[in-house]
């Protein structure tokens, strides 16, 4: 369970890509060995901030792809800005990740 932030300068905004390492189990998939459903476990909430100011709060359900990706755009990302993401999943695992916008 981890998350990485990458950025890309677009014509008139900055793209912020959130790539997650997560199984995104929806609780429906059957374990091939046991025949029992694999318990639900998916990313629930991700909050992205730029220099401490909230950009977007995302809520997700179980129908994300495995290792899901989110893409946001903002015009308010100065060079050197600190982009952060806080995440928590259904099992309560959580983390805080930061990255600087290199320009």
């Amino acid at each position, binding site marked *: 369970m981890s998350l990485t932030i990458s950025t890309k300068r677009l014509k008139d905004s900055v793209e912020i890509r959130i790539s997650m390492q997560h199984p995104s189990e929806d*609780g*429906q998939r059957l374990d091939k060995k046991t025949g*029992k459903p694999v318990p639900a476990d998916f990313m629930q909430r991700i909050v992205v901030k730029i220099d401490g100011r909230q950009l977007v*709060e995302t809520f997700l359900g179980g*129908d994300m792809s495995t290792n*899901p990706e989110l893409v*946001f755009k903002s015009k308010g990302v100065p060079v050197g800005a600190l982009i952060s993401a806080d995440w928590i999943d259904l*099992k309560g695992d959580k983390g805080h990740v930061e990255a600087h916008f290199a320009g």
Partner: protein
Amino acid sequence: MRTSFQRRRLLGLAAASPFLWLASALKPVAAWAADWPQSLFNMPTSDDALRLMGAQAAQPGKQILIEAPEIADRDDRVTVRVYSAIPATEQITILVDKALRPVVAQFVLTAEAEPDVSVTIKLPNTSTVRALVKAGGKQYSVSKEIKLAMEPCDAPNTGSKPNKATKGKHA
């Protein structure tokens, strides 16, 4: 704690698998996740979810674009982008009608964010995908069908709802 959670999960399983989510979601997790709109994400149909959001009478979203493949090659990773040109767009919710739990993602945008988001989802079946946009206190919706190149043929345990239109057909 662990034992009681597992027992509860087993009970949920025994009752019916659709309740598995609920059983899992009920377990005590960090308060930080308490903001997760559980009832919305547990709605069994898009209509129920729209009703819960007070969006049954959402206006047609002529200024909303859903960018997604017409035909998805794979069911486990489909990129869906929603772009809204409606001023003061503050929230975007993405729903997949045929998913067991149609609400797949909700984005609460601040003024610093462009109303332009992408997410990678599972597509259990050919389905209508909806984007519900809240802007200036009003709700707008737009939908698009994404076809699955290969319909799942193992109908049970796919986690999708029956698709009458395509039942028995294979692309």
